[in-house]
C-alpha cells in the first residue's frame, strides 16, 4: 500500500543534508509552508541554498533561518519587502549570497527542471543588468536569453487537501509556486491542512498528482496571516 503520509516532523524532513538546495513555496506568507520551515530550523541542516519568491519577514520562519546563519545563498525575485529586516541585515553584512531572478523566469526555471528541460530562451531581462553575461540569441528578429533549469534537492510546499498517494489541492492564491516546486525537487514534502481518504478528491480538481509528492504531513493550522 502506498502511504506518503508521515506522522512526525522528524520523519517529514529526514535526510535533508547540509548544502541542500531547498525550494520553499509561497508568495509572501500565503501558501508558505510555515510548519515545515520551523521544522527545518529544528532539523539543523546548514549551508542551504534557499529558493523562494521572497526572503521572509519579521524574525520567524525563513527570516529566522537566515538569522541563524543557516542559509548560504538565496535565490528569489523579491527579497526586499515590508518587514524583511533580517534579510537586509544579513545581506548588508555579506553573510548571504543573493541571486535575484525575475519572477516568471524563477517559476519557469523550476518548471523546466521538473519537465526535463535543461534550459530555455526567454525575452525577460534582455538588455538589463540581470541579463548581463547570459547567452543571447535572436529568434524571428527578437532577442532572447538562455536560462538554466533550477532543480531542488528538496521542495517544502503547502497544500489544502492531500490523500495518502500525495495528490494535492490548493486554496485560492495559495497555489502560487507550490505545484511548480513540487515537480522540481528530488524530495517533495507537503504540509496539508486536510488529509482525506484515497478517492475522496475529485480527480478533476487535483492540481498536483501524487507522483510529484514524496511525503505529506498533516498541519491543520487554520487561517493564514498576511505578514
Amino acid at each position: 500500500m502506498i502511504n506518503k503520509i508521515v506522522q512526525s516532523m522528524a520523519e517529514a524532513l529526514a535526510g535533508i543534508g547540509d548544502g541542500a538546495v531547498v525550494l520553499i513555496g509561497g508568495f509572501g506568507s500565503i501558501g508558505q509552508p510555515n510548519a515545515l520551515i520551523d521544522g527545518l530550523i529544528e532539523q539543523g541542516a546548514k549551508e542551504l541554498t534557499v529558493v523562494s519568491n521572497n526572503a521572509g519577514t519579521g524574525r520567524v520562519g525563513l527570516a529566522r533561518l537566515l538569522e541563524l546563519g543557516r542559509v548560504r545563498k538565496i535565490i528569489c525575485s523579491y527579497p526586499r519587502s515590508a518587514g524583511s529586516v533580517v534579510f537586509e541585515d544579513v545581506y548588508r553584512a555579506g553573510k548571504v549570497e543573493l541571486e535575484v531572478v525575475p519572477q516568471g523566469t524563477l517559476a519557469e526555471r523550476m518548471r523546466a527542471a521538473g519537465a526535463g528541460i535543461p534550459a530555455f530562451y526567454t525575452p525577460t531581462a534582455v538588455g538589463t543588468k540581470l541579463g548581463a553575461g547570459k547567452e543571447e540569441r535572436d529568434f524571428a528578429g527578437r532577442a532572447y536569453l538562455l536560462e538554466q533549469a533550477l532543480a531542488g534537492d528538496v521542495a517544502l510546499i503547502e497544500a489544502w487537501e492531500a490523500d495518502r498517494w500525495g495528490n494535492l489541492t490548493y486554496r485560492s492564491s495559495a497555489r502560487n509556486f507550490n505545484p511548480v516546486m513540487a515537480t522540481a525537487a528530488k524530495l517533495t514534502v507537503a504540509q496539508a491542512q486536510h488529509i482525506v481518504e484515497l478517492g475522496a478528491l475529485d480527480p478533476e480538481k487535483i492540481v498536483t498528482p501524487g507522483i510529484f509528492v514524496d511525503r505529506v504531513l498533516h498541519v491543520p493550522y487554520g487561517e493564514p496571516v498576511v505578514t
Partner: protein
Amino acid sequence: MNEASAGYTPLSRAAMAARVARDIPEGWYVNLGIGIPVLVADHIPAEREAVIQSENGVLGMGPAPAPDAINRWLINASKLYVTLVNGGSYMHHADSFALIRGGHLDLCVLGAFQVADNGDLANWATSDNDTAPAVGGAMDLAAGAKRVWVVMQHMTKSGHSRLVRRCTYPLTATGVVKRVYTNLAVLDVTADGFAVREMVPGLTFDALQAMTDAPLRMAAP
C-alpha cells in the same frame, strides 16, 4: 513653482488612474502594477468587462473584500486581500507567467522611475549598487504584455523629469513603453520620441517641455 498660480492643476493619483481607465476597452486582459496602476481597477465601470490579472496566479481579480468577507488565501501581488469576480480562476506561478510572457495580456500598466523617449523602462532599482535589489515580476510583464503603459508623476519630488532621453537607472526592459500618463500629460512613445496627446487644462506645451528632459512634440490631431 506654485502650479495653481501657473494656471493649471496637476492630476491627483486617483484622477491619473481614472484617466488610464478611460482608455481600457471592454474585453482586455490587464495586469496592473503596484502603486497608482492598481487604482486603475477602481475606475473601470462595472458594465465594461475588463479582466484583471494578478501575477500570483489570479485571473479575474475583483476589489478589496468587505471586512467580514475576507478570503485569507486570496491576495494580490501587493499582498493585499482581494476578491475573485464571477468567471475568475486560479493558476500556479508557471502558468501565470506563461500567460504574461506568452503575449496573452492586452495591457500591462506599470509605475516607473524613468521612461526614455525610445520606450526604455526603468522601474525596479534606483542605482546599480542598490542594497538588495528586488525585481519581482516587472521584467516579465514589461517583456511579455502586448502593450505597456506607464502611469507616474511627471517629475520626481526633487523636481527632475522622469521622461528622459536615456534612462540613468537600471533598465527593466528596452523599447517597450507605448504610452505614458503623468499628472500633467498623456504622451505616446513613437519612433520619433514622445508625442503629447493631451495636457491638463491651462498647461502650455512650452511649460510642459520646460519640465521635461526629453524633447517633446505635439501628436498629430
